Each structure stands twice: as C-alpha cells, then as structure tokens.
C-alpha cells in the first residue's frame, strides 16, 4: 500500500478529517482566484509559467487611481448603488407588506413573476432596458443606471421583506393595541424595531447587488456614469491585467466594509428571522 493510499484511507475512516479536508478544498477553490488577483496587482514581470511574481510593486495601484479616475468612478458607483437601494426599498416595503401579510390570491405566482428578470439571460434583459432608456433619455444618467439595477434589486428586496413582514406576529400588534398604543405608536415601538433587521438585510443585499452589477450597467452607462465593475472590464480590454487586478482589489474594499457592518451592527442571526418568541 502506497503512502497516498494509506492517507486516503485514514481520511475516509475519520469523518472529522474528511470534513476538514473538504472544507480546505472549498476554501482553496474560493481563495485561489482571489489570491491570484492579489498577487497580480502587486507583481511586476509575472509572465509565463512562473509560480510567484519575481518583483513586488504598488505601481499598479497608483496607475489605477491616476489613469482611470477611480475617485470619480467610485463616487458614481456609490451614488448609483444608494439610489438603487432607496428606490428598491420604497418599492419593496409596501409590496412586501401586501405579499407577506395579506391573503392575496395567486401569491405564489406573483412571487415567481418577481424573479422573472433573473431568469431571462441578463444580457438580453439589459438589451431591452437599454432600448427603452435610449428612447427616454435615461442612458448615461445616474438615476437611469440605478433604475436598471432596481429591476433586479427590487425583487430581492421584496422577497426578503415579505418574509420579514410575514414573520411579524399579528398578536404582538394586538397586544400593543390593548396596551393603549394607537396604530402609529404601535408602528414606532413594536413594528419598526421588529422589522428593522429585515429591512437592513434587504438594504445590504440591494446595495451589494447594485454595487457589483455589471451587465445592466454595461448596457446603460455613459461617460459620466462609469462604475467600478464596468471600468474594471474596460481595463481588461485595454490590456493592463495588472491595473485591472489592482482595481478589482479596490472594488472589494467597500464590499468588505459592508460585510463588516453586517457582522458588527446587525447580528446575522437576527437577519434570518432570529426572534424566537412563541
């Protein structure tokens, strides 16, 4: 029996070891491409079959900031993402309330229709959106790009919020009423604190979706509304893989901040209907 075979048998015998190995493979699968980008963004002269870059440099980051006007682009991306969050939330709160708390006939069907934009190939959907936008002068406007993002952000927000509102116990509202609170004060003191985690979750999901959205932006952007994902893509076309990598890393930073916020401000277990009452 070879050593490798012996090791394999040991893994199969010990479930704990097996699980650890699988987790390690999974982590490698996720982190290797990421590691490649990191290395590419700080490496010089890294060509051919070399395993590691021969020389390290931060030049590409300087290039990314100077040549591609990254500050302006980041601002665009954030403005569009915030607009998309705002619009999606405004749409999703009443819709989610209706879907989650009222007995609407054909509710399941409506929910599936909401996901329809996601089922059409994104590029085809984006093409349709672009054609409308050219006729309505929405191309190359922040609100236009944000609106395009809403078409895929809002369904997500509606799904999350309808689940949040559905989980809101009607009896708590009744209890609040018996305690003397009118509907407005019931909303302020009972409904709002209970749905807040869900609303925040929905906003974070919409934000990251819009922030990373590529296809829809590509079809609706103009010179004033270039976003980070689109600029990164363009940089590939220009042939600067190192700059592209540096931009990708910069692109990740806000996402990491958002993730950090989720961890710190909103405990994740609260996001997934974690209130365990009776």
């Amino acid at each position, binding site marked *: 029996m070879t050593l490798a075979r012996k090791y394999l048998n040991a893994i199969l015998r010990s479930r704990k070891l097996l699980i650890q190995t699988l987790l390690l493979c999974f982590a490698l699968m996720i982190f290797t491409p990421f590691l490649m980008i990191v290395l590419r963004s700080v490496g010089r002269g890294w060509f051919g079959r070399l395993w590691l870059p021969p020389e390290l440099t931060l030049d590409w980051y300087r290039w990314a900031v100077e040549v591609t006007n990254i500050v302006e682009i980041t601002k665009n991306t954030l403005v569009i993402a915030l607009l998309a969050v705002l619009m999606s939330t405004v749409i999703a709160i009443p819709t989610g309330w209706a879907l989650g708390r009222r007995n609407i006939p054909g509710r399941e069907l409506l929910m599936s229709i909401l996901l329809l934009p996601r089922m059409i190939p994104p590029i085809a959907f984006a093409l349709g959106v672009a054609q409308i936008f050219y006729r309505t002068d929405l191309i190359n406007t922040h609100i236009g790009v944000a609106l395009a993002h809403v078409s895929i952000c809002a369904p997500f927000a509606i799904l999350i919020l309808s689940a949040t509102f559905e989980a809101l116990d009607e009896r708590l509202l*009744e*209890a609040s009423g018996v305690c*003397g609170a009118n509907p407005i004060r019931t909303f302020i*003191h009972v409904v709002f604190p209970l749905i807040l985690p869900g609303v925040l979750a929905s906003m974070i999901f919409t934000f990251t979706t819009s922030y990373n959205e590529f296809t829809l932006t590509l079809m609706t952007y103009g010179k004033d509304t270039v976003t980070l994902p689109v600029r990164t893509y363009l940089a590939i076309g220009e042939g600067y893989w190192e700059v592209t990598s540096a931009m990708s890393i910069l692109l990740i930073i806000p996402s990491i901040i958002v993730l950090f916020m989720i961890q710190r401000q909103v405990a994740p277990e609260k996001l997934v209907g974690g209130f*365990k*009452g009776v």
Partner: protein
Amino acid sequence: MPDYMIELRDVTKRYGDLVANDNVTLQIRRGELMTLLGPSGCGKTTALRCITGHNIPDEGRVFIDGEDVTDVPTYKRELGMVFQSFALFPHMTVFGNVEFPLMIRRMNKAERREWVMDALRMIRMEEYEDHYPRQISGGQQQRVGLARALVYRPKVLLLDEPLSNLDAKLREEMRFEIRDLIDRLGITAVYVTHDQAEALALSDRVAVRNAGHIEQVGMPDEIYDLPQTRFVADFIGLSEFLAGTLSAVHTEERTATVAVDGLEIHVPATPEMAPGRKVLFFIRPNDIELLPASQESGINVFVGVVEKKTYLGDRSDYRVRVSEGLELRVQTDGKVRFEEGENVKVHLPIPHCRVIVE
C-alpha cells in the same frame, strides 16, 4: 354606577357563512370573574375579541362600564389582556414589556419605574427585569404577561386561554395565582378557556358556550349540579344519558318518576314536568352507589350484574347490567370492590338524578 362592567347586547358576528356569535347577550358584573367555557370553535374567543375591539360585531352593541364602546378602537378601551401565546414584545426586556403601557400613557420615568417594580414584585419576577422574554420559561413569560396587563390598573382584565401553553403542573399553580391576584385587585375579569376544570376552579360565574350561542350561565356549582341542557351536562363532566318518559309527578314528595327501559326512576320534580312528556334522564357515574346484593330494596335501588370492571387506581369503573337493554356505568372509590359476574344492587340517589324535559 351601572350594574354591569361589561355587557354584550344582541351581538352577532359572522365570518362568511359561519356565525361565530349568534345574537349573544352577556352581562358581566363589576368585580366578578366570568369564564367563557366551550369547545374550540364555539365563538368564545370571538366574543372576547368583540370586547377588546379586535372584532367589530356585525350587529349589536358592546358596553364597558356603561359606555357604548362598539365603535371605540381597542387602544382607547383601557383594557388589560393576557394572551395564550403570551405575546410579549421580543425586543424588550421584562421591564420594558411591563413598562410599555405606562410609557404609552406618557407617565414620567420615576413613577413608571415604581409602578413596574410593584407589578414585578406582585408576580415575584423583580429579579428578572433585565431578561428578555426568550431567556425565561413559559410560566414566567405568562406571569410577565399578567404584570403587563395589570400594571396600569385597567378596569377590566381579559384572559384568552392564558394557561393552555403551560404544562399541567404549572397550569394548576398559575390558576391559583391568577385567582389570588384578581381577588386582591378586585378587578373585573373575563376568562376564556376550553378546560372545564379550570373554569370550575377559577370562576365566579361560568358561561358555557356551544356553536355560537350561550347554553347556560351560572355559578360553577350550578353549572355542575344543575346543567340545563344535554350539551352542558356532557361538556362539564362525564354523564350517562337515558331517554325516558315521565310517568307520574308526586307533588307532595316533590318528586317525579321516569320510565326508562322498564325501570321506574324517581327524580326531583321541577315545575315544567307533566306526565307523558319525553325526557332525558342523566346521572354522573360517580354519583351512583354500588351496594351488595344483600342490601334491602328501596326507592331507586335496582338489581344488576357486574358485566365489566376496570381498575383505575383511585377508583374503579363498572358496567352494570340492570335490565335487558340497559347498562349503567358506575364509578366508585377504590374501597368498594365487586367482581365481574357478581350480583349487586345499584342505588341512584334522588338528588343526583337529573332530567332535561325535551
């Protein structure tokens, strides 16, 4: 001051084709604990929700303390309510939950604290003020629910199956605790339950409900001893029902005889009795006496044979054949012992014999 704290006057509430409350009139006196007792689906919760204002009756009026509140929203009715599901606010601590009604009433902070701590002391939960509902047990949650309902000293306390989600032992303890609290505060209370033992133990008066209407209202012993309908007799405790005909009324002895399957059973007479009328005779199995065969015969003593015996620990359950087509169920305490096949005498004591004239 009006006589009744709560009054439902000809209240009808429908859900589509289902009539949950059909022209119900109910008067609850100041300071009494009235129980609405009935099986699930009898509309007792609907009636309660008409009092709270969560349901608006289709017809009829609701009065609280003499005031017509039919169109007054829940939050202006000044009620306290305890829920089956506890319905504590999960994002507030025990203190916050109890404080909520006071905060809504804009009481100042220092006074609030005093009242809340009083309420928590009342239910012996003052050490738990910083706990969240999910951190305390079901029984404790329900006590907090009680404190929240009582903290602002409402005129009326409503309890909707408050003990159904608790285990049997705790249920019995809480029963006394609730009764004790209500006595101390002298508050008017409406208690909804499907548990007849709970209703009999707690209430000043019981309203037994069946399918949208009230069958009988009375004190617990009246309901238990003098049920007026078959439904009440059946619901409140195990009963043997026998169809019979009134054969004679003896005015002097204040009794009547009922012919049931060849037996002549004496029963207490009531004014509406007249010979020839069809009646439903019933007696509770534990009110029937089982005597040795050597016992002398007398009124309401019949000869029988033990067909089947079931030992139940503290008591025994017998099936006794007293005539060709008639088998009586008898329950005796553990001291009386008869064997299957043994000849016995069965005594139906007149005061326990009940008749419903149909």
